[in-house]
């Protein structure tokens, strides 16, 4: 069965963070930061390999990264890393069934226990911590 026949929303629906609360924002950010960090990781392996070509090559590579653009990219990487880590721990605990509430008889209007304040606080905390880490990173990089 093709996607059109199944009336699937596709990538647009999967990546739409404007519906169903902050959990969908966290879901999207987790994917984007994961992909961003993978790209940075591969680029980092490539850039550090310049050390094998001696001091001149290393200094040239360093000069490329120590620009305003380079610092901003590194600050974004710091933010992505912090968000992916903190939210990743939240998701991992959730996947183990920790902090998702206990089954029971719900009364109308049925507030789902898994969508609890603990998880929402953890998501907001991971965003705030990522922002703080980015600011600290920018202060260290531009402060020198």
């Amino acid at each position: 069965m093709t996607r059109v026949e199944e009336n699937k929303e596709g990538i647009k629906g999967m990546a739409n963070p404007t519906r169903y609360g902050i959990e969908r924002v966290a879901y999207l950010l987790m994917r984007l930061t994961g992909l961003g960090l993978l790209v940075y990781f591969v680029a980092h392996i490539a850039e550090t390999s310049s050390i094998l070509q001696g001091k001149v090559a290393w200094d040239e590579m360093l000069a490329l990264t120590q620009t305003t653009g380079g610092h901003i990219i590194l600050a974004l990487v710091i933010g992505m890393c912090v968000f992916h880590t903190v939210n990743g721990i939240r998701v991992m605990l959730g996947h183990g069934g920790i902090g998702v509430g206990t089954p029971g008889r719900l009364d109308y209007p049925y507030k789902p226990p898994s969508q609890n304040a603990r998880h929402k606080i953890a998501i907001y905390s991971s965003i705030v911590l990522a922002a703080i880490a980015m600011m600290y990173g920018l202060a260290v990089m531009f402060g020198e």
Partner: protein
Amino acid sequence: MAAQSTQISKPTSIPASKYVTLRISKFNPKKESSPKFIDFKVPYQKWTTVLDAILHVKQNLDHSIGVRYSCRQASCGSCGMKINGRPALACFTKIIELNSDVITVEPMNNFPIIRDLVVGFERMFSTHKKIKPYIIREDSEITPGTKEFLQTPEEVEKYIQFSNCIKCGLCNSVCPTMATDSSFVGPQALAQAYRYIADTRDKGKKDRLKIIDDSHGIWRCHFAGSCSQVCPKGVDPAMGIQLLRGYLLGFRS
């Protein structure tokens, strides 16, 4: 007695109707290439549900509207559809709650459209069957010489919430994985797998865990929780799925 009958025959005063625009998605995939929206002016009272409004259109304005419904009381799971962009049961959504002059109704996503607002549930029912939604054990309560399988109220609490599932498909229609993954088991079936595994009478845990431990099984759930947010029966599939995954991760036995 006489006073009572007078009271019954007295006409009750019905408040004057307000009107709302009901925008219905019309689409027959066998005949048309894309859906189109048709607007209808529909009267409503404070008790009018979206299903009532659709049936008003069907009865008075356009008989050809395709809609599936049965119980009209959120028990059968037939009338799931997208109402103003969010999946809900039409019989369980009052027009007044929507706070909107225009109500758009569309078929749910992630299900093939049969016609207009009616979608096909074949795939959901087949994944539901795949996880063996019944008690698995060697003996049975009707075998001579055996007693009924007793459970404590605490044991019942562990799964009773998940047995409220009416297979309306709302959870599958909002799942971000299902938006792109045609092979994913889906929150409905996964929550039902937990419902039976958590039942102390059941002995099919191993079988079911094997079925869902697949590349398009339980691991494709990323705990976005949208399924739980739209569930009209308070099943909380996201909780069931995470508790179920706890068995596979060794957090519970």
